[in-house]
């Protein structure tokens, strides 16, 4: 089964990353890289990407007739930001949740687990073949 593990930017009580100490930032980056390498080594990683900062985001709506409405980001509510995602191909949902839990506990300031919120969603797949 494939799952998308979506990471939110905002964590209650944790300052934004650019206010951390340099060594805390380095530790955090190292954790993300190690986790990525581990998922590759397990044969579980489909894709993992960080997203550009929401400052550069655009919102687009269109009725298909007139010119589309394009507005600049960012979102009003910082907790709505999607920071990035992992897409994994795993045995079952329990494994997807276990990976999300690992990622959620990424080290923050002073190495304390961040408790970053992850949304775990299964991908729609082809229907199982008829018996």
């Amino acid at each position: 089964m494939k799952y998308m593990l979506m990471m939110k930017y905002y964590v209650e009580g944790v300052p934004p990353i650019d206010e951390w100490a340099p060594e805390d930032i380095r530790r955090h980056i190292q954790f993300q890289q190690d986790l990525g390498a581990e998922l590759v080594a397990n044969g579980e990683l489909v894709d993992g990407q960080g997203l550009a900062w929401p400052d550069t985001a655009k919102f687009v709506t269109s009725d298909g007739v007139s010119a589309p409405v394009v507005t600049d980001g960012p979102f009003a509510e910082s907790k709505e930001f999607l920071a990035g995602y992992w897409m994994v191909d795993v045995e079952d949902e329990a494994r997807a949740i276990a990976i999300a839990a690992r990622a959620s506990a990424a080290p923050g300031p002073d190495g304390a687990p961040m408790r970053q919120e992850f949304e775990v969603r299964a991908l729609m797949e082809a229907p199982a073949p008829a018996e």
Partner: protein
Amino acid sequence: MLVRRCGDLADAQDALQDALLAAATQWPEQGVPDNPRAWLIVVGQHKLVDRYRSEDARRRREEVLAAMETVETAASGHDDSLLLLFGCCHPALSPASAVALTLRSVGGLTTAEIARAFLVPEPTMAQRLSRARRTLRELDGPFRMPSADEYAERLRAVLRVLYLMFNEGYASTTGPTVARADLAVEALRLTRSLHASLPDDPEVTGLLALVLLTDARRPARTGPHGELVSLADQDRALWDRVMVDEGVALVEDALARGAVGEYQLQAAIAAVHDEAPSTDATDWPQLLALYGLLERMTGNPMVTLNRAVALAMVDGPDAGLALLATLDDRLPGHHRLAAVRGHLLERAGRPQEAAEQLLQASHGTTSLAERDYLRVQVARLRRGLAP
């Protein structure tokens, strides 16, 4: 090879793919033949014949025959790979498509490898390649040697594609590093072979020098965890001296020929850096002059940005900052402008403003490695720490 024999690029590639597929299925059982390359070509021709016998053979045969005549006529006196390169880098293709098609058709990469390097699924890349081939097929003799009046423009397009390919592999730090490095290696190989075909063209020589002089720094460009190391902080002992020497000799040779172009100037700039033992011991007045020439030649604001760095090294950070102020209209909100300004503000002893600029730059970049680097710099400045 097969292109010469059947004329149509897409057909030749399909045939080769079939041959490779046959190889993959037959070699494990029958063992690898004594001369695998010759075997592939022979099997490729058989497969081509098979294809011609298929239902829509007649229409295809006509197309292919027409194309074959064109290539055969044009190819006399020119090597096949050069014609292929000019065709694959045709200005009718978008730069991204041209890079992909060149990797596939002139370089030795498979569709799967190219897809991996560009972080797209293989079927997507296969479609992009076949759309590019379709565009070429609608042109009049894309694989003919360009006529004298369009030669300069076509060669410029080739150089641009090779330069983009190299940059994609060298500069971009997204995605699997190994697949990316393949692009740089392939760009170097192709530029080398172009230079072998056109040894007297100073810009071809300039591009080869630029690629060598830049790629020479690759071992020092990233740290143990893949993080970006700035030029000032690189361990210069890791730079590839053989590549540097070759690049320097090439750029000197090209510049001596008179017709100075932008690749030669960029190579000359890279050579000045590569020959310096440290940032402080770099010949900044020389770089300032070279960036000045390049700026006049290209009018590119990114060149002005680099000139501001050189100017700051020669006349102090305030002079650099004054030049940056002239770029606000031309590069509004660009993260590179903010990054350079932040760097110069720190040198001018204004750490808090520097942190603000670098933070802005970190929000604007789409390179993960650059964002990580900038964040660490912001954190450092905010805590009043030295670099």
